[in-house]
Every structure is written in C-alpha cells, then in structure tokens.
C-alpha cells in the first residue's frame, strides 16, 4: 500500500548519486532527552565532571544518538522508515557537546551500491562534525521497488 509518488525507484538511481543531505544540531538537553528515551544513562553523556575525569574533552553525544539522528534523511528519502532493512556504523570520533550552544553534525547520503536482484540500494552516509568524520563505514541498506 506504499505511496508510489513519494518513493524513489531503483531504476532511477546510479552509484554516486547524492540522495539526501541534512544537519543535526545536538545540545545538552538533546542528550538528556536521548538518555531518557533510550535508557542509556552513562554519565559521559550528561556529566561534564565525570566525562573529563575519564579523559574525554567534554560531555560527548551518545554514538547511538548520532547514528540514530543522521539516518532520518535516508528514511525520509525512502518514503518509508521500514524500508531501511539494515544499518551499520563504526564510531570513529566522539562528538563533544558544549554546555552552551550546539554541536553541529552534517550528513550526506549517497548511493554506494545497487543490488537489482535483491531490490536494495546501499546508501553510504558521510557524517562530519567540524569537518572531521565522526562515523566510519556508515551504511544503510534500503529496499526499493
């Protein structure tokens, strides 16, 4: 019952196509909100004193918050969040979140591979903070018709 008008077609895609871009702004309140919603209460994500005490530069965002936030552009592009049948990443660099202001994370999603037989496209996400990659080998597999 998918709405065809809003969903991309596999046949229209080529490797290298940038299909979506976006910006995610993270502040301390967002981290606390994610902690509550996810159940991950590790104090490195909300207690500056604790974070610096274990050698971190500042409070850092949950890797899972960064991972979970940037994939939204892929779900929106696909037109159906359930079309994201696989999603993986490496956490290569922490995202420090200052007490004041926000940490800005940028995402660009491009077609990495097309599997016509399986009816899936691999979307590679480039995710950066202050010009440095924070996620590595970040790939979403999307089922399209």
């Amino acid at each position, binding site marked *: *019952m*998918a*709405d065809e008008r809003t969903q991309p077609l596999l046949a229209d895609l080529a490797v290298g196509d940038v299909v979506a871009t976006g910006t*995610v702004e993270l502040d301390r309140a*967002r981290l606390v*909100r*994610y902690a*509550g*919603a*996810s*159940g*991950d209460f*590790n104090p490195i994500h909300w207690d500056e004193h604790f974070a610096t005490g*274990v050698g971190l530069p500042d409070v850092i965002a949950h*890797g*899972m*918050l960064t*991972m*979970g*936030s940037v*994939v*939204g552009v892929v*779900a*929106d592009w696909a037109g*159906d*969040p*359930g079309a*994201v*049948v*696989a*999603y*993986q*990443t*490496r*956490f290569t660099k922490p995202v420090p979140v200052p007490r004041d202001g926000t940490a800005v994370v940028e995402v660009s999603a491009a077609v990495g591979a097309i599997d016509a037989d399986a009816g899936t496209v691999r979307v590679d996400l480039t995710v950066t903070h202050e010009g440095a990659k924070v996620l590595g080998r970040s790939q*979403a597999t999307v089922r399209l018709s």
Partner: protein
Amino acid sequence: MANPDFAGREYPATAPYSVGREKLREFSSAVGAAHPAHHDLVAARGLGYPDLVAPPTFAVVVAQRAEAQYVQDPDAGIDFSRVVHADERFTHHRPIVAGDELVTVLHVDSVTERAGIAMVTTRCEIFAAAADDGAPEPVATVSSSLVIRGEDS
C-alpha cells in the same frame, strides 16, 4: 579485564519487551525521526503497517536490556567507565511496530585482548513472541562491539 571465558556464551531468552506507541513516539522525537509513520497511526497504516513503525535504531533499546545481562555481570570484568562503543549493526528481518512483544537471545560472539585493549562483540537475536504455540518470528539482529581501555591506556 574482560573475561575471555564468556566468549561463545548464549543467554536464555529475555522476558518480553512490549513495544508501546508512546515509547516509539518518544524515541523518534529524541533522535529527530520526523517521518509520520513513527507518530501518526493513519500514516503508518497508509504504508501498510498494523501500527506505528520504529525508527531504524530503536532496536538498540531492546538490545541494551539484553546486553546488560553480560556487561553488568561482575564476572565479565567489563569496567564501564573505560568502555567506548566501537560499532553497531542492525539487520531488520521485518520492521518493529507498536504492539510487538519482543524477546531477545543474547550471544557473546567474541572477547579478544591485544596490547591492553579488550574488544567484546555481542549479538542480540530479537524475536516476536509467538501469539500461539508457533515458532518465534525473527525480527532483528543487533550486533555491537565495545572497546575497553586497559588500566594504563
């Protein structure tokens, strides 16, 4: 340091996790997942789902509860103040929807140590509890690797 004896261990299935609509809305808002299928029942049903759809990383909420059996076991030797999340991988056999009753079987796939750095990899096999006496339905596989820095690093 991480106890290598845990490698290969498989835990009994957890008690069911009940996926609620408001939990999906709360989690979706926390990660900024704005697609209407996470929030609006009409939109979700319009896409063919029986109820609200979970965002792609929601399964971590279910998986973390199962992983706690291992990482919080004092015998496992995992000092959480020294843990760094190294990677995470989701495979969805079908989307998670509100109303699901999910049980998880946790596997410790590997425990390795090199130069004072330990790495543990866990895998959660998440199933929908069968409504009758049928076999549980595979829903998602969540693999996670943690790096544990040594005392001196």
